[in-house]
């Protein structure tokens, strides 16, 4: 049986315990705060990061470089036969580009790099699926096929108190204008083939929850046995309310809950939540 290593980047927001359980290898992006650079999740914890964000710091991110991937790839190929790297949307970060360059320089025949067209737990769910299959002994072809099969099926609904962070980091084009932080107006965003798109705006948290549940009901999917991803940056109470509503209104019992890492936190800001699920 071939040994397959699953690699991703630090913006996949997979809970730490699952990273360990499924032996997922994470290449961190760099977080820059006040001229100091930190490796996401390595040199700085989420708690430290959100503390700094609260103080009003304005972090930025830098994509993982080809060399950073080369080091990880070279190291893994000593003990694994094959590497599958599932990387966040190339439309939002050049990290995928770096991974591909590294692949070509290390050993293109033994490495597959996938542009997931997702981010945060959207990418995380793909990675987890791949990692579970690798542990169970699936072949690289089976894993890659499954990942590509899942990519168009994963949906997420995200709500923000403010889009300032997304605009500032350039992850939401200014052409997607939004009226701003008044009247408790909350924009609702979804993933649009690797980019963020404002799909609606509502006033108040209750209407956000209503919107999420209506959307999920309209898919016609029976979510009772499905695992649903939940994520927040620094908005735990709101996430609890969302979870309670999903339990009572959709009968969901299995949740993959995570707090977003520093990379996602940099671009989403402290007041963001998201619900992730497989549609269809």
């Amino acid at each position, binding site marked *: 049986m071939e040994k397959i290593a699953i690699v991703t980047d630090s913006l996949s927001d997979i809970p730490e315990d699952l990273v360990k359980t499924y032996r997922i290898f994470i290449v961190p992006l760099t977080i820059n705060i006040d001229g100091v650079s930190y490796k996401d999740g390595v040199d700085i914890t989420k708690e430290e990061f959100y503390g700094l964000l609260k103080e009003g710091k304005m972090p*930025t991110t*830098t*994509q993982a*470089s*080809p*060399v950073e991937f080369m080091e990880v790839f070279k190291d893994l190929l000593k003990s694994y036969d094959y590497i599958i790297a599932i990387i966040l949307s*190339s*439309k*939002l*970060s*050049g990290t*995928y*580009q*770096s991974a*591909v*360059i590294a692949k*070509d320089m290390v050993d293109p025949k033994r490495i597959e790099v996938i*542009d997931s067209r997702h981010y945060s737990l959207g990418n995380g769910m793909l990675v987890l699926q791949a990692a579970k299959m690798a542990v169970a002994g699936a072949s690289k072809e089976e894993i890659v096929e499954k990942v590509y099969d899942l990519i168009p099926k994963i949906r997420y609904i995200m709500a923000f108190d403010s889009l300032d962070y997304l605009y*500032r*980091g*350039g*992850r939401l*084009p200014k*052409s997607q*204008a939004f*009226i*701003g932080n*008044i*009247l*408790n*107006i909350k924009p609702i965003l979804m993933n649009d083939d690797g980019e963020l798109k404002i799909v609606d*705006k*509502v*006033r*108040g*948290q*209750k*209407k956000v929850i*209503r919107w999420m549940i209506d959307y999920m009901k309209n898919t016609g999917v029976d979510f009772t046995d499905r695992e649903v991803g939940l994520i927040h940056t620094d908005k735990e109470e709101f996430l609890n309310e969302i979870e309670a509503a999903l339990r009572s209104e959709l009968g969901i019992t299995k949740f993959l809950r995570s707090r977003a890492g520093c990379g996602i936190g940099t671009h989403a800001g402290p007041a963001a939540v998201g619900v992730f699920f497989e549609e269809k």
Partner: protein
Amino acid sequence: MLKYLDGKTLKNMMIASSNYLFNNKVEVDRLNVFPVPDGDTGSNMAYTMQYAAKELEKSQDTIREVLDAISKGTLMGAKGNSGVILSQIFRGFSKRLRDTKKITPCDFAEGLKAGVEVAYKAVMRPVEGTILTVCRETAEEAEKICKQIENFEEFFTKIIEAAEKSLQNTPNLLPVLKEAGVVDSGGMGFVYVLKGMFEGFKGNKIESIEVLEGIVTNKQVVEDLRLLYCTEILVKTKKTYAEAILKEKFGKFGDSLVLVSDDDILKVHVHTNNPGLVLEEGLKIGELIKVKIDNMKIQHESLVSEERKPEKKYGVLVVVNGEGIKNLFSELGCDVIINGGQTMNPSTNDILEGIKKINAENILVFPNNKNIIMACEQAKALSNKKVEIIPTNNFNEAITAIVNIDTEKSLEENVARIKEILSNIKTIEVTYSIRDTQINGFEIKKGDVLGFINDSLESVGKDYNKVAQELIYKALDEDSSLVSIYYGEQVKKEKAEELKNSLSVDADVEIYFGGQPLYYYVISIE
């Protein structure tokens, strides 16, 4: 006149280039709008080049060693998207030329070509109008001219010209640049790399200057232009001055001050409206060696595309009353806010004048009062613009409607959506009676508090908070998830908070200062 480059020259060129780019990185950062406008292109490219320079310091002077150091250094230092692309350009360049003994202009051209090939291959979806285009067109020009040109001086002058021409053309290839009125930042970084190499070739020592200001965003570029002239002087000073004194001497003329001194030579860079004063101050402390004054407005304007912005798709006019409410609408981005309400109806002409001021494809008008709808309709009939009246009775309806305008959808779709949403809003008004009367079977005394739900009198009392609370409970149903309370000019904030805290409902409750006359509260249930 050098006809070929040796390892030592190439090394000096790269080190000079690294410093040159570093000194100009802020300018490059400012232009950064693609692929993500995070304002770090210049910094990332400079970082990448610095890494190469560091690697070069350790290397021998043979062409092979120098090129290997450049290739390795840029790769190790590759930071950000543009840094990665730059590293790929140098990777191709170095690989192609590492076995060359002496680099001629045609060799250099071939190296560039190889760099272009590697970079295009490395980028998943090459986009034209970026550093890739600038590098490619430069390489093409280099290939074309290299046979006729034997010395590098002329060769470099020509290829830098080509690079700049290509850079100026980037907005025509990449719409996002045109919209922002800038040239491509990565492309500009590449031009600086070439220029820096040329400086190094000419033997000019380029020192890196730590720029004092931080990274400046695009928006600030325009704001900065309150100071028009980028002024630089080089002074041979009579004696050495402490930095603090120099800062005081030159800092008062403007901002973005940069001071670099090397023995008795001082370089001053400042953005100012009075370049003359800077020169005079320079004369006071020594002899001027060099002066450079750029009008930044002209620099900036030449970058801004000439096309006028099209009209926006939706414009909004509202008729409202009350300080707080006006502020809310202005923050919502309404184009025209006309003062008016129950006792103060604006004229048809007022509304028509308002409509005239709006430069939009579609104009939505919210009368917010039954008595004003007619005037709006008349204004619409008199206007030659595309106007749609949404017959709102209260401003809270307009707030919800405006929040729900989807600028990507057609006017018809938006009107239909707004109408549907408005049908689900309940409006509570709490006011007082100005005389004794009888309505809906209620005996009313002058001064009594009256509570209406959707214009129907539902409660009469003495305490406006109690009446409001009663009606909120009455109006809420299982679909209601938001209660917005707008308190009027007669109500203190504490009273409104008291009302909010007295409610035990399964909905978000929000209070806002409306400042409307006559009505203690206008409450929106949706």
